[in-house]
């Protein structure tokens, strides 16, 4: 019943996660400094869009120095500000990650480790000297020096440093809860840990490098988008460059400053400036949810998932069955049955046993009875498959129906005819029947019900609405599985599942072209975790499971998969939405700048000045200023992500096209006009 102990409580606060305000002083100030430092061609060249802006700034600055005018100087300043704002956006996202990384680093203060050699001699070493395969001893109060696997003993461990969950968890050798994380604290008992990761490669190290974004690799979709943005930047270069000869041919004087301004306004600076922050912030949000992704690729894959495999126990249902009903048979009353069942369960410390006591109290107010008579408890064994109480001459038993039937018959009793009917009905509804007898008489059946988690049905409904199919995995027989599946609202189930069945199911889904996600914690889950496109290993699980999966959930809460899917989708949506917005913005900028470029030669073109901007100079300035300010305005959106409301692809698309496409078309017309009204007062 370890499940019960390790069952995490939903937590909102997080050790590493903790939601932080968007603009913290500790983050904003260094970010401002960092944004100036990033004005370095070597840094900028990584972002082709902003690199072009930087070059443009230099060209305009050159013009402004050799033929200074209020206009050229102002354009140079605002172009430079555009570069700074893009840097600031990235520095903000990185800074937030660094703040998290720093708090993680504090946990890495060098602890002493008690290394034991092969012949059992203990020596004190510095934790960072530990090698893979070393065995160390940890006792109450010790900090576990590095990631490892318990080879001996059982202990309660405080993992709040990484999970934020203050309730201690049990970790023991063998089984599925043998992994421990460096930096966590042993609260009781003594364990021997075999080190599985050296300093620099531990869980914590990976987490730090992940949130810092230092070695951040671009995700596949990000790479593809960068290519598209580079293409859109490259195409605007000739578009703008040839305007000079075109203008000369047509007899129009075209100013270089205006051409550069137009170029910067047309290339997708908004998304170009915010692209990397979206990626960093997405990983950050995931860490806030206490999920550790091994790569950004895995997060993106989560957004693509079409099939979700979920273990029944712990994910769909609460870990344990609960007594829900007393069903008497023959002439016995419900009270009689409840009384016997309660007595038989008094010494039963299993959650099922306790739930019978609770139900009896709730229904009939049956409390602890004084058992004056001589009595002894009969514990459950795998052979008898019953437990109970011998009190006086009475033998009260509860257990599997078949076992109780055999017991009663052996004592010379009759099995009531309706018993089979009742038990069959209970099984069919997805519950487990537990027969209760006194001596050679069967009183009735206790229904033990799988309790489906609150709100889980709604979550599955939501998943269905975004096109994700849920499959419940259970060891139950098909009858029970079907009933629970129906109650929980999953789309399908796999009953009497073995690890091989799981693997097979994943392969079958993948062969149909579906991306599959699953959660798991046991060593026997490892092959399936590795096969799944997204494998979320529970932090409480075995090392093998953690290595096979591509994400680790620090809270060991299997429902978390759903959050991961949402974050994956949100990252993509934010990128797509800002790209659309960025491109849609160009239309208004054209209507501001094109008439300004050629209106002196072709006054008729003022018809294109539909915003009625004050002057050619004010029009160009307004477009450039709008272009710079919109980056700042969208930083919160990039860091938080576009709101994701679960609905079908068509609905999501329609909404985002309206907001970011149509909105992106209209907003700059208003924005540029407002800025024009302001700058025209400044003498442009």
């Amino acid at each position, binding site marked *: 019943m370890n499940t019960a102990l390790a069952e995490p409580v939903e937590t909102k606060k997080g050790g590493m996660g903790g939601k932080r305000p968007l603009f913290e002083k500790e983050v904003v100030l260094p970010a401002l400094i960092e944004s100036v430092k990033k004005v370095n061609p070597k840094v900028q060249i990584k972002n082709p869009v902003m690199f072009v802006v930087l070059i443009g700034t230099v060209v305009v600055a050159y013009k402004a120095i050799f033929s200074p005018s209020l206009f050229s100087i102002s354009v140079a300043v605002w172009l430079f500000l555009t570069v700074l704002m893009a840097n600031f956006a990235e520095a903000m996202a990185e800074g937030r990650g660094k703040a998290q990384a720093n708090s993680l680093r504090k946990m890495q203060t060098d602890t002493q480790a008690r290394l034991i050699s092969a012949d059992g001699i203990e020596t004190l070493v510095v934790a960072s000297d530990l090698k893979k395969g070393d065995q160390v001893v940890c006792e109450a109060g010790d900090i576990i020096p590095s990631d490892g696997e318990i080879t001996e003993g059982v202990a309660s461990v405080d993992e709040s440093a990484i999970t934020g969950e203050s309730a201690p968890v049990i970790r023991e050798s063998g089984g599925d809860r043998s992994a421990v994380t460096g930096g966590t604290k042993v609260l009781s008992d003594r364990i021997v840990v075999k080190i599985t990761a050296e300093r620099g490669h531990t869980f914590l190290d990976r987490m730090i490098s992940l949130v810092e974004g230092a070695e951040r690799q671009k995700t596949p979709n990000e790479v593809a988008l960068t290519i598209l943005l580079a293409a859109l930047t490259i*195409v605007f270069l000739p578009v703008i460059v040839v305007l000079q000869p075109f203008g*000369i*041919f047509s007899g129009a004087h075209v100013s270089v400053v205006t051409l550069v301004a137009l170029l910067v306004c047309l290339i997708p600076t908004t998304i170009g400036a915010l692209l990397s922050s979206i990626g960093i912030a997405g990983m950050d949000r995931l860490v806030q949810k206490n999920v550790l992704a091994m790569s950004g690729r895995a997060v993106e894959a989560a957004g693509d998932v079409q099939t979700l495999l979920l273990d029944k126990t712990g994910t769909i249902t609460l870990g344990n069955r609960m007594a829900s009903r007393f069903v008497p048979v023959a002439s016995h009353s419900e009270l009689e049955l409840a009384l016997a069942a309660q007595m038989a369960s008094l010494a039963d410390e299993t959650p099922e046993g306790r739930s019978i006591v609770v139900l009896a109290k709730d229904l009939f107010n049956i409390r602890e009875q004084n058992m004056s008579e001589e009595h002894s408890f009969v514990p459950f064994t795998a052979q008898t498959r019953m437990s109970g109480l011998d009190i006086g001459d009475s033998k009260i038993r509860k257990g599997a129906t078949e076992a109780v039937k055999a017991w009663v018959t052996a004592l010379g009793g009759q099995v009531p005819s309706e018993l089979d009917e009742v038990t069959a009905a209970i099984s069919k509804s997805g519950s487990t029947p537990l027969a209760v007898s006194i001596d050679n008489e069967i009183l009735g059946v206790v229904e033990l019900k799988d309790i489906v988690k609150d709100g889980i049905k709604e979550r599955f409904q939501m998943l269905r609405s975004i096109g994700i199919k849920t499959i419940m995995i259970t060891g139950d027989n098909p009858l029970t599985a079907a009933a629970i599946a129906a109650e929980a609202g999953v789309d399908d189930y796999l009953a009497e599942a073995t690890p091989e069945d799981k693997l097979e199911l994943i392969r079958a889904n993948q062969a149909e072209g579906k991306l599959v996600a699953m959660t798991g914690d046991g060593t026997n889950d490892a092959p399936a975790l590795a096969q799944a496109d997204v494998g979320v290993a529970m932090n409480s699980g075995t090392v093998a499971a953690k290595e096979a999966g591509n994400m680790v959930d620090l809270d060991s809460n299997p429902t978390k998969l759903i959050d991961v899917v949402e974050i994956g989708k949100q990252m993509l949506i934010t990128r797509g939405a800002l790209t659309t917005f960025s491109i849609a913005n160009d239309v208004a900028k054209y209507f501001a700048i094109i008439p300004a470029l050629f209106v002196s030669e072709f006054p008729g073109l003022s018809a294109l000045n539909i915003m009625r901007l004050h002057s050619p100079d004010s029009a160009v300035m307004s477009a450039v200023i709008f272009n710079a300010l919109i980056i700042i305005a969208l930083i919160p959106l990039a860091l938080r992500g576009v709101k994701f409301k679960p609905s079908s*692809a068509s609905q999501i698309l329609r909404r985002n096209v309206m907001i970011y496409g149509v909105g992106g078309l209209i907003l700059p017309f208003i924005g540029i006009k407002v800025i024009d009204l302001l700058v025209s007062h400044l003498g442009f």
Partner: protein
Amino acid sequence: MSTAWTIVVLVVALGISWRFIGSYMEAVYERRVNWLRFIERPIYRVCGIDDQVEQGWRRYATSLVVFSGVALGFTYLILRLQGHLGLNPLHQPAVTPALAFNTSVSFVTNTNWQNYSGETTMSFFSQMIALASQMFISASVGIAVAVGLVRGLKRQHSKTIGNFWVDLTRGILYILLPIAFVASIIFVAQGAVDTLSGSIFIHNPLDGFKQLILLGPVASMEAIKELGTNGGGFFNANGAHPFENPTGLTNILSIYLILLIPVGLTYTFGKMVGSIKQGLALLAAMAIFFFSFMAIGLSAEQHTTAAVAKAGITHSASGNMVGKEARFGASSSVLYNVTSTQTSTGSVNSSMDSYTPIGGLTAMGGMMLGEVTPGGVGSGLYTILLFAIVTVFVGGLMVGRTPEYLGKKIQAREVKLAAIGVLIMPITVLVASGIAVSISQGRVGVLNPGPHGFSEILYAFTSQGNNNGSAFAGLSSNTAFYNISGAIVMLIGRFGVILPALALGGALAEKGVVAPSLGTFRTDTILFCGLLVGVILIIGGLTFFPALSLGPLAEQLSHGRLF
């Protein structure tokens, strides 16, 4: 017949033939139609082609490029040697090297840009063997590329996208030749000439009237000129010449033939990928542009130009008749020219140069959007598929999934290829135009100064860069500079899109298909169609808007100022 009725008849006729020609073409390329097997088989045997062997995209593209190179050399040689090759009743001398280069590139790339007057430059041998045969071949090459790309979308985990030699042969044999044959007979029946005698000399002794009437194998070239969206006329006047386009019926038939294959290919596409609605979505996007341009063009040409108004003619019941054939009138002329410029055909039955600025803009607009409305045979489909992939990428991100088109994931490689294919044309056209206006060799050919002259240059390169071939006129482009720069632009405009399209087909063929779900961005909906229209419009609009504002827009908005 009124314009409205003409359009109704055309729409109904195309609507009916859409599914027939579409499913027939699907059967041809899937090799289920074999009624000409007795001709096909010997062709393979003679050429040493193993028609059972499939090619990967690299082999397919290499075959195509090598073949086109050979065709180019072959055409060039004929034009240079035409004085010695016979079938030359008018004793045309060899075509000059620059012009021969431009012309052979032009016909091999399905452009049919003509820096010459056919009747006074080309021998019949050149017209038939060099030019008309390229009209069949280049058209079939275009369809083959489209089919190769669609196979890539359709197939899974496949290393091959078909066999270029087989696709090329079958396109000519089963599709182009039979339809062109029937259409030629109709043209002849309507009065288009088709003869190997060079000319008739008319001399009326009573009034002393003398006229030399040039003839030639016109009708047979006419059918494939339209059907293969080639556009290269036998005569300089092209579709305005009574021997090419004798009657109102041939005028409609020409428009029908131009649209037949580009429109039908959307059905072929739908059928090949297993959902007609997918093809319908593309067709709808094409139609939105087509009818918008048509409506703008028709309304623009109802008014006279500024020049005519200056001359004191303020109102004309029949619209802007300058440069138009009296037989057709303003509306039918617009119908023909707008169709031709939106299909990469480029044949014209009226002079673009004399259109109103906005009328001229509609012709240019169709080309600037990349010739996808519906575009040329094959090229229209493969180009709009490139746009569709860009659309799917941006739209797909917005629904929170790795974008996919027809179940194929669109990732870095696909985005790169689609972006190259979509953007190479505007870059080429703008750079070439920029060079032309900057150097004296470019400026010298311009007849009109200012925005109109600029429009002439921009139009010339836009037309060649999109393998359209229609000319704005007013630009003396038979110069070494325009011949060679134009040829380069045509080559880039053709192969710069074909190669990425085939590479994309190869990349997609290797991928597996992701199963559709509610979370999939659907590409057979009105929403997708709208997004596709937006992407085409924005890419075309954003890249050409500044240039257009110096050309037709400046002219139009200058309210009667003459350039």
